[in-house]
């Protein structure tokens, strides 16, 4: 039966715009799958930046945390992260609250996380024997046969059946399929939205990331192999963490439009200053205010066009690289096995975006709970006590620790996290801890440290 809807053919040309993780993984998977079905297609990846540059020019702005499960999943795809890409294996979270600190050890080995640099390290950093995560993935795609074009795409239009891609230097070329993997920190999505009535680009909010140069040894002593998370009563702040990486510590503030006011409140918190040696926050060497996707593109596909990673749909606040992986793979699968028309993407790709979108709705609820806890001192005491007690016991199920871990690391879906918080034992335990920790005369109310010794030195 003749099939009139467009599919990839031998000789088809694919343009991937953006050489971040989504673009690289898409190219890698697509070429792999095409190989498997003996389909001879070519992939041009447009990426003018070089991830070997230090500082923001070579960086893709993010906290740089990859969950162990994603690392494992990539390994099964043949993408084995070399040691020089991983800055530091993170083995625990340390939760900082005004009522005390608690360290949550990694629940299971497969839930460990890895800290990475998206570029080649902070501005003015010495050439270390490290490699950029994005650079590594791009190289993998290249090894698979993707052709990297060092040009900046500035425009895209329909030219008859095909898509025309235009670059800043007036280079232009036609393709059978265009894959948008520009992320939300590039203007291209805005340019495209202005052109196409039916398309709405992802909604964004402003975050803050900066790097402190502290030194390997001092980091080991003060931060350990632990990611430090803050649960502070600061309006609009959803998540704040310090992530140790080599000689540097990365600070990551997520929330609703991080601004000067919020940052001032954060830096003025004693819990933050106390994390640093001598209780003094040092000068930072590099910072940026990257935008993150908080609502997926509508729709994230079109005729011969598909948007992946942050350009399409991603998980709220966390695990953006995991979402890049999932969207890249689903889009590649659709293109190779189903078709490159809007209907194929609608049937085979859109469901994943919807699933991510729905999970994010659940994520909002979960983060809403988090905000409640942040606001209420008595709730913070309860969480602290429950977690600390779980951490002391070796064999008992760690319900609160698990929930917090998955929430911080993005290792599980928000729906999963949410469902676990509905477990009667969890609720019962939380209620009990809320009550006990807030009893008048309870030690915890007077002495904020609930009994867990962190690796880091106390000041």
């Amino acid at each position, binding site marked *: 039966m003749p099939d009139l809807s467009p599919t990839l053919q031998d000789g088809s040309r694919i343009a991937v715009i953006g050489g971040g993780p989504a673009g690289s993984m898409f190219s890698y998977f697509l070429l792999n799958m095409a190989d498997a079905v003996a389909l001879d297609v070519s992939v041009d990846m447009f990426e003018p930046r070089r991830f070997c540059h230090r500082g923001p020019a070579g960086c893709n702005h993010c906290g740089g945390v990859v969950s162990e499960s994603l690392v494992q999943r990539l390994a099964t795809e043949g993408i084995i992260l070399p040691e020089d890409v991983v800055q530091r294996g993170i083995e625990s979270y340390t939760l900082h609250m005004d009522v005390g600190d608690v360290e949550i050890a990694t629940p299971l080995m497969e839930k460990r996380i890895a800290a990475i640099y998206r570029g080649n390290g902070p501005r003015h950093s010495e050439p270390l024997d490290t490699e950029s995560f994005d650079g590594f993935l791009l190289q993998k795609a290249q090894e698979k046969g993707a052709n990297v074009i060092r040009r900046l795409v*500035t425009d895209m239009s329909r030219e008859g059946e095909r898509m025309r891609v235009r670059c*800043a230097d007036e280079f232009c070329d036609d393709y059978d399929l265009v894959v948008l993997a520009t992320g939300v*920190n590039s203007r291209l999505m805005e340019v495209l939205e202005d052109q196409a009535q039916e398309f709405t680009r992802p909604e964004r909010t402003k975050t803050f990331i900066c790097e402190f140069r502290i030194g390997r040894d001092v980091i080991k002593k003060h931060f350990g192999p632990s990611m430090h998370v803050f649960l502070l009563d600061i309006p609009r702040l959803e998540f704040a963490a310090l992530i140790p990486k080599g000689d540097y510590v990365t600070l990551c503030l997520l929330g609703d439009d991080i601004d*000067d006011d919020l940052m001032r409140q954060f830096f003025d918190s004693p819990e933050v200053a106390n994390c640093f040696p001598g209780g003094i926050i040092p000068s930072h060497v590099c910072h*940026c205010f990257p935008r993150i996707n908080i609502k997926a593109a509508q729709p994230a596909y079109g005729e011969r066009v598909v948007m992946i990673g942050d350009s399409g749909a991603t998980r709220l606040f966390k695990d953006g690289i995991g979402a890049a992986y999932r969207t890249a793979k689903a889009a590649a699968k659709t293109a190779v096995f189903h078709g490159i028309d809007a209907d194929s993407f609608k049937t085979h790709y859109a469901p994943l975006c919807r699933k991510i979108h729905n999970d994010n709705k659940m994520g909002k609820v979960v983060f809403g709970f988090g905000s409640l806890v942040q606001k209420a001192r008595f709730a913070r005491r309860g969480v602290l006590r429950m977690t600390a007690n779980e951490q002391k016991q070796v064999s008992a199920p760690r319900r609160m620790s698990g929930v917090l871990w998955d929430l911080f690391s993005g290792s599980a879906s928000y729906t999963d996290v949410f469902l676990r918080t509905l477990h009667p034992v969890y609720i019962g335990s939380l209620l009990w801890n809320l009550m006990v920790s807030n009893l008048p005369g309870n030690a915890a109310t007077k002495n904020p440290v609930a009994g867990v010794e962190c690796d880091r030195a106390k000041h």
Partner: protein
Amino acid sequence: MPNTKARTTTPVEQSFWTYAQQMEKLPPCQAQCPNSGDARGWLGIIAQHEKIGLTLEQAYDKAWEKLTELNPLPATIGRICPHPCEDLCTRRDKDGPVSINAMERFLGDWGISRSLSLPVADLGKHTESVGVIGSGPASLSFAYQMARRGYRVTIYERHELPGGMLRQAIPDYRLPREVLDAEIQRLFDMDVQLVRDMDIGADIEIDELRKRHTLIFLGLGAQAGRDIGIPGEKGPGVIPGIEYLRQRKQGRESQTGTRVAVIGGGNTAIDAARTARREGAQVTLLYRRSQVEMPAAIREVEDALKEGVQMTFLVAPTRIIREGTSVRAIEIQEMRLGEPDDQGRCRPVPVPDQFRRLNVDTVIVAVSQAPDWHGMEPIRDGHKWLHTEEDGKLEDSIWAGGDDRGPGIASQAIAQGRLAAEAAHAELRGIPHPKQNLQRRAVVKDSVKTDFYAERQRVCSPRRAQEDWLCNPHLEIDQTIGSDQAELEAARCMSCGLCFDCQQCFMYCNAGGFTRIEESQSGKFFVLALDACEGCGKCIEVCPCSYLELRDSD
């Protein structure tokens, strides 16, 4: 700096906030050009023509206009300039410097073929009249800059045809006379007057000219060849290089013998040697230092060698041996290199008792030139050269430029004529003295990110086949590149220190701080909203051409 919004204040050290600003900088080509030629500017018009809404033809016209703001003779200079601009071109270490000289030549020829005319601000706007003595590059430049500012200009030339050294001394195979004629004619089309065959001192006194004109400009050049001062030098068969070239240009009866010795290592010596080769002579060039110390342009030396000019280095003439009145031979002494002089060139030192004879019948002496002071006695101060102020002012209402202030390349003469005109205009109009335009900060070496730019093969002026070079003494060796090649070559300019619309800042700014200018011009495509800047410095780091930089502290 109009930054009204208070900057982020956090405990995080403010000095690490890297706010950006746009800042045009002086590119190395312009810094190297004696005339501060804005190659980046006119190449940019061509390279960016589609972005600024020009057809290629319009872009060439506009680039020509930009070029001729500072240099009224682009087809000429595009042929003869040793182009120091290309020496420090940022592309040099990547895939060869931009062929600025070939591009200038192309645009010059483009202007001639399109009969483009030089702009005049307001003809006869000012009543002052200006007298220019000499019509070499300095004088033509001064005349042009004054005429376009609205002054009445009269040029007094001792010879029949204007052009000075360009006319008298540059051989046809480097500069066809039609090209020079066409470029000078444009000045006369601006209503610049020419008085020919006017020998100052004989036909008119210099003081009379001073009465006639509000101010005068001296562009006397250095037209007198100088002697070496050795026995046998006086008499037939020995001729100054400049005089030899002048005679050959005028097509006068040849004095070239069959065996010619040329003494000297400068451009005049090379021109004379190559001209003599074209007359069929066997030519030996004698230079007292070694090849690396030769002041002549390297390419000219290489071409002379290709044409069969013999070069003998580390020798100095000591005597010219005559038989009757005719030259028979030249006696030369071996030299060796001694200590470096003030300019870092090694001094030649005679090797005692090492003499040789070289049988020749003509000796061309091209060791040095000086101004011809004939008729200028009332002005001359007794020194070898004129000593003016930096802007060319000699005394009240007298300005000077070009080789009469010391030898230099034609671009330098053009620069001196232009700067003198700018200063003279300012003085006449009572406006502030024009500041040297080199106040802009230079592009810091290595700040241009050359790996951003794709490799592109350098386009050079094509040359005629070498076997044809000597067939016709007037045949020009280099050719002009075509329009397609010119477009490709212009695109090789990295636009050091000025925006060329790579769009990276616009595309990557997290804050969306860059806005496209609706009516963009070459070099100006985006505005940066200073208070939108979040100080991450990404745009500075991605900017390939070093246009974006750390903002000056407020």
